[in-house]
């Protein structure tokens, strides 16, 4: 799935942004890609599809971040969004217990539908409002560990923790992609069909090492 070919090739990753409405998904990604928060002089037309080019340890990475509609009534559309994605950023509001519950639901669904081939990040946003915290750090972190995800704290307002979380995610996705490639034996023609996601049978055994990579990285 990742367009990770031979050594010098550019990686292209698709990352979906999931979470309830109003948890700050859009602010997070706007801050990351355009370094803007609540900017009155908006030049950005939209904040639902953003791209970022990165250079990680000499390898070029193109990140495509897909925002999703967080309203409850669109929940059922999730699979259409996260199909074929390499990573998922699950955002909750640390002052809102419900939004954390939503994240748990998403994790369950993602693991069920995509197995371990997707790298998960659980992000507690709005740490600038720490005094109103309703989701405890311990609870969130232990939960993240139990499902093979990494937990981060962030504040789009203060621009805290965002850069780190995406960088980390990219590294993990690269490792997953590389592991996938190794398993395929570097065959260009074989990686070809992987792009289409046709060989579901092949993917299953790879899922385990990929997951191991996720939890370790």
């Amino acid at each position: 799935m990742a367009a990770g070919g031979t050594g010098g090739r550019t990686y292209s990753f698709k990352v979906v942004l999931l979470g309830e409405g109003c948890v700050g998904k859009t602010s997070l990604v706007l801050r990351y890609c355009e370094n803007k928060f609540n900017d009155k002089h908006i030049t950005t037309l939209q904040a639902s599809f953003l791209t970022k080019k990165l250079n990680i340890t000499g390898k070029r990475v193109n990140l495509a971040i897909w925002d999703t509609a967080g309203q409850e009534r669109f929940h059922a559309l999730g699979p259409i969004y996260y199909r074929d994605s390499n990573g998922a950023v699950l955002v909750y509001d640390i002052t809102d217990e419900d939004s954390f519950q939503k994240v748990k639901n998403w994790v369950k669904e993602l693991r069920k539908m995509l197995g371990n081939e997707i790298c998960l990040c659980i992000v507690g946003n709005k740490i600038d409002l720490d005094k109103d915290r309703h989701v405890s750090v311990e609870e969130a972190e232990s939960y993240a560990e139990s499902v093979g995800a990494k937990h981060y704290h962030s504040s789009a307002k203060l621009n805290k923790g965002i850069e780190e979380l995406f960088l980390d995610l990219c590294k993990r996705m690269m490792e997953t992609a590389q592991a996938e490639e190794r398993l395929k034996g570097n065959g260009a023609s074989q990686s070809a069909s992987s792009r289409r996601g046709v060989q579901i049978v092949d993917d299953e055994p790879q899922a385990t090492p990929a997951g191991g990579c996720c939890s370790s990285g």
Partner: protein
Amino acid sequence: MTSQRRGIHLDQSELLCKKGCGFYGNTGWQGLCSKCWREENQREKQKQIQEDWALAERLQKEEEEAYASRHQKAQSQPTITPFSKFEERKTKEKSSKVNTVTKFFTPSTKTPSKKDAFEAQSSPSPSSSTSRHSSVDSDHATREFIDFLKPLKSGREIFKQCRAFTESMVYKRDMAADELSECVQDFYQNLSDRLHTQFKGSSEHVESVMDEVEKYMMTRLYKEVFCPETTDDEKKDLAIQKRIRALHWVTIEMLCVPVDEEIAEVSDSVVKAITDVIEMDSKCVPKEKLACITLCSKHIFNAIKITKKEAASADDFLPTLIYIVLKANPPRLQSNIQYITRFSNPSRLMTGEDGYYFTNLCCAVAFIEKLDGQSLNLSAEEFELYMSGQASPQRPQSTGAASCSPGSSALGQVHERLDLLAGLGERQEQVMEKARQLESDLIDWSDDVEQKVQSVLESFPPETQNPTATTASGTTPAASSAIDSDNVENEHLPPPLQPQVFAG
């Protein structure tokens, strides 16, 4: 006659024109002078002519009407059906002809395809206008493709492969759509891998070549692989079209669309977005179809941005897109989505911006298909009522203006008028009621008066002024007295004449 007789006693005044113009009249001209006669006669004639015309016209009209009604009764049902059937047959014939034309020519594409297209064009088949159009298109695509490949060192090789593959696809017409898609996708994959490894192209370069390859191949294969007969795409198209039509009552408020169509610029963007998503159907190449969706999305973002004054998030975008799709009811929506999914370059669908908007469109369609009362904050009963058309949602009067595109403002007016009419009807009913009451009151009153008069008459029998008459005529005192009283004038009359006998 009279004038004749008068002619005997010749009177000077009688000789003059009846019109009194001062000239002498003539009996032959009905006593008019020559000038007045001409005028009179002309007017008469004109009138006659006009009357004749009117009569003729009326007669003709009557005749026509009679004929038409007779005809309609006899023929209305049967005429329409055979015609539509004929149309159907004609289109069928056309498509089959088109197919045969392509079948006939495409396999023989050993010669350059340009020549083929030309032959197809000059073939005398009169109903091949669509095939002619498409061959012009594919001809054009071929030429462009060749032009694009010319400067590339591996251009010839690429062209050969693409042409061979395109031709081979024609034989696979009867394959399932998924298999066709598989074939095309494998071809894309193989070619792009080859470009990467053999020809050592940079990824941007490979991308641009692949775009052209897609354009060339899909223009040529469009007719074969868009909405193929082996799938039920067409049925799905009709289903979603019907569904969207049934959902015509869904308002901006129900979907929580953050767009204020009151602002001219916003409603302008909305209209543009609708146009773009409809235009998707007219494109042949998946990439161009995707471009339409992207353009539509940009217009939506623009509308949201103007309304909310901040960059649009997915939370705003998806509901608006759903609203646009509901408003636009794009033609062959499912076929287009399927076609793009099957034959577009996969990397574009998965990570590109076009892919994101396309995914959102798929989401919008999925949402519309599964839409229920809950997702619109309506109760199940309300939803059922609206869907069955038994009721239409009450327009919020206060914010009614806010939801006004030109269409909905007209709708609002219609609602207003309907309310007004309903009010008028009620009032008329009241008036009628009152009128009826008044009528019955009047009848009662007159009965009442009659009864009273009767009773008065009974209790005070009328006394006659002439006691002698009473005694004389006995049983009918009133009548006789009345007659007598009527004849009061008789007293003033002279005594009746008596026959007199003249002696002698």
